[in-house]
């Protein structure tokens, strides 16, 4: 009997050890406090509330020397659902390392469109600041479901490339409304460990621009007049460029995106966004930072719709450990184009606890 228990005990140790190797599970989450004062409003201009953020289960496993799996499953607050929460599969992908540092990836990924989307995903503890750039809510096609060809750390400058062919912006994770796949081509170099300089091009054809599928930005506002979205076809081009430096003292990130949409109805619309972040590590765990975040959507854009905003932030990040930090930001939002038809004028204060486990 004692012998049997001993064998079972050894088996469990071995099993849990081999599980520790092959399957790694991490969790990430965050919670916020938000304060907003809309200076344009005379009645009830202030909002103040706590917010339970996304909670993210991250799984990494490898089947053999060359094939691995990565999954990211997120639960977030969603109004109108029975439990007020909904779950989503943000990433689920198989990776095959076929030759040295070259891989083929199949599944749902974060579109390698810029530094932020490629590096931070849904883990707020990795974010240098509280929120994603504004462009993520309007321009950036966050996800892609399809096939990715990837190379990394190639040559002296650690050149990396990504070529993605997948379901388009208006597609779901189970269907696509047109035969034209979305295409992403991205490359970057890392001259030293702390630098990453990259650029990308994304193209998609939407046969019905009103369908915002699983892979669009998280917010596309309806038409100002009727609330009906444009239902015609649309060509979507997005060129992005990013420069990132994260060293012992200085942190810098600049991401610029130029978006062209084309419809037969209103022709070419030219949109752009620029996000600049600078942080300075005054001590090991203390990082004050500043952000300038711009977005401009042209008047004749029929996918994202006319909008412009500039957000200025000052923040502070305290890193308790690599898996726990707190950030506080104070900011001002306004329009920056004279021709703007929306009026934004507000002050925000936010605090975030971001954690991993």
């Amino acid at each position: 009997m004692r012998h049997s228990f001993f064998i079972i005990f050894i088996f469990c140790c071995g099993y849990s050890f081999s599980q520790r190797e092959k399957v790694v599970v991490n969790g990430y989450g965050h919670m916020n406090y938000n304060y907003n004062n809309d200076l344009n409003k005379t009645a009830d201009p202030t909002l103040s509330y706590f917010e339970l953020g996304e909670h993210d289960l991250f799984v990494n496993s490898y089947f053999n020397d060359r094939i691995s799996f990565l999954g990211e499953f997120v639960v977030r607050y969603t109004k109108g659902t029975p439990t007020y929460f909904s779950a989503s599969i943000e990433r689920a992908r198989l990776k095959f390392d076929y030759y040295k540092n070259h891989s083929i990836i199949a599944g749902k990924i974060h579109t390698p469109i810029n530094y932020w989307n490629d590096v931070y995903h849904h883990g707020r503890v990795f974010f240098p600041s509280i929120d994603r750039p504004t462009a993520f809510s309007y321009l950036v096609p966050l996800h892609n479901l399809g096939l990715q060809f990837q190379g990394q750390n190639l040559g002296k400058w650690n050149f990396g490339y990504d070529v993605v062919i997948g379901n388009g912006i208006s597609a779901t994770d189970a269907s696509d409304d047109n035969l034209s796949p979305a295409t992403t081509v991205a490359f970057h170099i890392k001259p030293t460990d702390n630098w990453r300089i990259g650029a990308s091009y994304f193209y998609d054809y939407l046969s019905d621009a009103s369908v915002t599928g699983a892979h669009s930005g998280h917010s596309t506002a309806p038409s100002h007049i009727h609330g009906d979205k444009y239902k015609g076809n649309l060509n979507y081009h997005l060129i992005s460029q990013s420069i990132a430096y994260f060293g012992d003292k200085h942190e810098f990130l600049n991401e610029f995106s130029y978006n062209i949409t084309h419809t037969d109805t209103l022709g070419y619309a030219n949109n752009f966004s620029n996000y600049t972040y600078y942080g300075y590590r005054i001590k090991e765990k203390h990082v004050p930072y500043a952000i300038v975040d711009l977005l401009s959507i042209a008047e004749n854009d029929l996918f994202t719709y006319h909008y412009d905003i500039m957000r200025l932030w000052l923040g502070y990040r305290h890193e308790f450990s690599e898996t726990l930090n707190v950030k506080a930001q104070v900011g001002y939002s306004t329009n920056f184009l004279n021709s703007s038809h929306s009026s934004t004028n507000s002050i925000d204060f936010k605090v975030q606890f971001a954690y991993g486990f």
Partner: protein
Amino acid sequence: MMDDLKYAVICVDDDPHILQMLSFQLEKIIDTKCTLLEYFTIPQDAIDNFDELLQEQIDVIFILVDFQMPGMNGAQLIRAIKLKKPDIACIMLSGQANTVQVAELEQDGLLTCFVHKPWDEATLFQVLNPIITSKS
């Protein structure tokens, strides 16, 4: 407030996105303190509104119409408006116009200008500015 409005401009297109774009652009060159900007997706509504403006003695500077519309096309709408106010400027903004009907409008002296869709702002302003300044 209506007393301050001496002029009006009417835009008719069954696509609300076209009308929204026109609203953004017209607001740049038209003084909205004295000029009413009206937008319609249904041609008959535009005609009914036109009659009301005439009764209010508001001078309609120009009407900007699409060609392809349900119920009544742009050429028919222009002919109907011209009967009520012969000196009004009529501009057609279209990508799919019937060339015969447009040519007939031009021959009959009813069409001030034809602008192809998609249009650029500068081209539209080149057409509209002389019409607007002739009133001021």
